[in-house]
C-alpha cells in the first residue's frame, strides 16, 4: 500500500509564512492595523507578478479568516480589517457556512484539460500514424511537426496511442485529475469550480493544485481568540500528530507545546480510538452485513453521496473525534473543544455533528507555535495515553489492525487506500461476502491528509515503531 507523495513546495511555504503572521496579529489583537499590510510583507516587490500575487494573498487571507470567498471577493482587505469582529462574528453573513473547500479564482491558472497536444518529441516521421488514425482529420503537419487543430479534435486520444515516440500528451488539470469524485468542473471563465453536491471535502484537490488556488476555510481566528479569552479551551489531538513537528520532537513535547499556547487541556484522540476499536470489532462480528468504518468523514460523505444503498451499513460507532468531543461536552459545559488534525473533512464532520467546536490543521498549529515563540524540542516530555493500536488509526490499514487486536474479523476485509479505489471496492461488495471496509479517503490514511507537515512515509515509520 503506497502513500501519496509529499514535496515541500513554495505554495506551502507562502501559506505557512502567511499563517504565522496572521496568528501573531490575531494573538496581539492588531489585525485592524496589520492585516492590510500583510500581502506586501509576504510578497516582495521583486516578485514577478507582484500585484496579482498580492491580490491572491488578500483573497486567501479571507478564507483563512473563515470567510466566504464568493461573498467577500469584492471587499477590500482594509475594509475587512476595520470591522473584523463584525465579519467573523458567529452570525455574520460573510462567513463560509458549510463551505470547507474554496477556489480562489484569481489564483486559478485556468490550465487546459482534456485537450491533446503534440510536444517537441515529434520527429515528423514518415509514417504519420497520428494523421492516419485521426477520425476527424484534425492533424496536419506544420513547421516540421504534427499539429492538432483544436476546433476539429474530439479528444478521442487515438493519435496519442498511435505515436511510437509518445510525443502526443493529454493535458490535464491537476485538481480535476486528483479529485476522486469528479466534483471539479469549469465555470464560465474556465476557472475551476467545485460542485458542492459532489464534493466530500477531502481536500485532495488543494494539495494537487500547483498554483495554490484551492484553500480550506479556517477556524484560526476563533481558536486563537478562545485561547486568549476566559472560556476553557481543550485541544484534542489526532493520532497522525506523531512525527508532525520534526524528527526530534516527541508527542509528549507537542502536548506541552500545545499547553504553552494557552490550551487548558490537551487529550489524545488515540484514547477514543481504542474505545472505537473495541466497540467496532464487536459490531463487525455481530452484524450479518458488511460494515463500513466511520472514522474518515470524507469516506462517510462519499458513501452518503455515491453509495446510497450502503449508507445504513456505516458503523454506528461514531468517529474517535466525535466520541471524545461528545464525552467532553457532557462533562464540561462552556468549554471550547478544538480538534487538531491533518484533515479538511473533519471541519465538515464537526459542523454537522457538533462534537467539537473548531478544527485546526497541523500546519496551523505549527504556525501558532512559531507565532508564540514556542519551540517543542525545548520542552519536557509529557506522558501520553492510548495504545499503539489506537495511534495506528492514523494510517491506512491501521484501523483494521486495531479491530483485529480486539477480536479477529471472521471474513474478508477490504482496506480502501484512497477514495480513488472506492468504486472498485464497492463493486466487490455486490458480488463477494465482505465483512468490513476500512475507508480512508487519503492515499496512506490520515498521515497523508491535506493538513500535514511531514512526508507520510516518515510518519508511518514512526507510528509503526510505537508498536515494537
Amino acid at each position: 500500500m503506497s502513500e501519496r507523495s509529499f514535496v515541500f513546495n513554495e505554495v506551502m511555504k507562502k501559506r505557512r509564512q502567511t499563517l504565522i503572521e496572521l496568528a501573531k496579529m490575531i494573538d496581539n489583537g492588531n489585525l485592524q492595523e496589520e492585516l492590510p499590510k500583510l500581502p506586501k510583507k509576504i510578497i516582495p516587490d521583486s516578485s514577478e507578478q507582484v500585484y496579482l500575487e498580492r491580490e491572491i494573498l488578500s483573497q486567501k487571507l479571507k478564507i483563512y479568516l473563515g470567510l466566504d470567498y464568493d461573498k467577500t471577493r469584492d471587499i477590500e482587505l482594509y475594509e475587512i480589517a476595520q470591522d473584523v469582529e463584525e465579519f467573523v462574528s458567529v452570525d455574520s453573513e460573510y462567513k463560509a457556512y458549510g463551505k470547507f473547500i474554496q477556489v480562489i479564482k484569481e489564483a486559478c491558472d485556468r490550465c487546459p484539460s482534456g485537450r491533446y497536444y503534440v510536444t517537441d518529441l515529434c520527429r515528423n516521421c514518415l509514417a504519420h500514424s497520428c494523421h492516419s488514425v485521426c477520425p476527424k482529420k484534425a492533424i496536419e503537419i506544420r513547421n516540421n511537426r504534427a499539429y492538432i487543430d483544436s476546433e476539429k479534435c474530439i479528444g478521442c486520444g487515438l493519435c496519442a496511442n498511435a505515436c511510437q515516440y509518445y510525443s502526443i500528451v493529454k493535458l490535464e488539470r491537476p485538481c480535476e485529475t486528483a479529485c476522486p469524485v469528479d466534483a471539479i468542473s469549469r465555470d464560465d471563465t474556465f476557472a475551476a469550480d467545485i460542485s458542492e453536491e459532489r464534493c466530500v471535502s477531502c481536500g485532495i484537490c488543494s494539495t494537487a493544485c500547483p498554483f495554490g488556488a484551492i484553500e480550506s476555510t479556517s477556524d484560526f481566528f476563533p481558536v486563537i481568540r478562545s485561547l486568549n479569552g476566559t472560556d476553557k479551551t481543550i485541544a484534542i489531538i489526532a493520532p497522525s500528530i506523531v512525527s508532525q513537528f520534526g524528527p526530534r520532537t516527541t508527542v509528549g513535547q507537542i502536548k506541552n507545546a500545545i499547553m504553552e499556547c494557552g490550551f487548558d487541556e490537551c487529550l489524545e484522540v488515540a484514547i477514543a480510538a481504542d474505545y472505537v476499536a473495541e466497540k467496532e470489532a464487536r459490531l463487525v462480528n455481530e452484524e450479518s452485513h458488511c460494515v463500513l468504518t466511520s472514522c474518515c468523514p470524507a469516506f462517510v460523505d462519499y458513501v452518503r453521496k455515491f453509495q446510497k444503498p450502503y449508507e445504513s451499513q456505516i458503523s454506528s460507532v461514531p468517529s474517535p473525534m466525535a466520541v471524545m468531543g461528545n464525552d467532553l461536552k457532557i462533562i464540561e459545559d462552556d468549554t471550547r473543544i478544538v480538534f487538531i488534525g491533518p484533515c479538511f473533512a473533519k471541519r465538515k464532520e464537526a459542523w454537522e455533528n457538533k462534537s467539537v467546536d473548531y478544527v485546526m490543521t497541523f500546519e496551523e498549529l505549527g504556525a501558532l507555535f512559531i507565532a508564540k515563540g514556542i519551540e517543542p524540542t525545548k520542552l519536557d516530555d509529557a506522558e501520553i495515553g492510548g495504545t499503539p493500536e489506537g495511534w495506528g488509526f492514523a494510517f491506512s490499514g491501521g484501523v483494521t489492525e486495531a479491530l483485529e487486536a480486539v477480536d479477529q474479523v471472521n471474513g474478508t476485509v477490504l482496506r480502501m487506500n484512497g477514495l480513488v479505489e472506492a468504486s472498485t471496492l464497492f463493486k466487490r461488495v455486490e458480488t463477494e461476502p465482505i465483512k468490513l471496509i476500512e475507508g480512508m479517503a487519503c492515499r496512506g490514511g490520515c498521515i497523508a491528509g491535506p493538513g500535514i507537515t511531514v512526508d507520510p512515509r516518515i510518519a508511518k515509520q514512526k507510528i509503526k515503531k510505537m508498536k515494537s
Partner: protein
Amino acid sequence: MMEIKICVGTTCHLLGSSSLVEAINELPEEIKTKITLKYSTCFDKCQQEMVPPVVNIDGEFFDDLNPAKMKQLIIEKAGEDH
C-alpha cells in the same frame, strides 16, 4: 570532513528543512563521502536575525535555504577545501 547540521526545530521544519536533506542526496558521490550530516534542534537564530530554514556548516550559519541553494552552497564549500 565537512560537518553539516540541519536544524529540525519546529520553525525550520515547517519552513522546509526536511527538503534540504534531498539536496545532499543529489550531490555527486565524491562530495557526499566528505560530508557528515546531523540533525540539530533549534539554533535560536530564527526568532531575530536569520530566516528559516537555518543550517550550520563547520560552525558557520546559513539561512533562508532551499534545496537548490543548499546544493550550491555545499559544492562551493567543498571546492574551497581543495
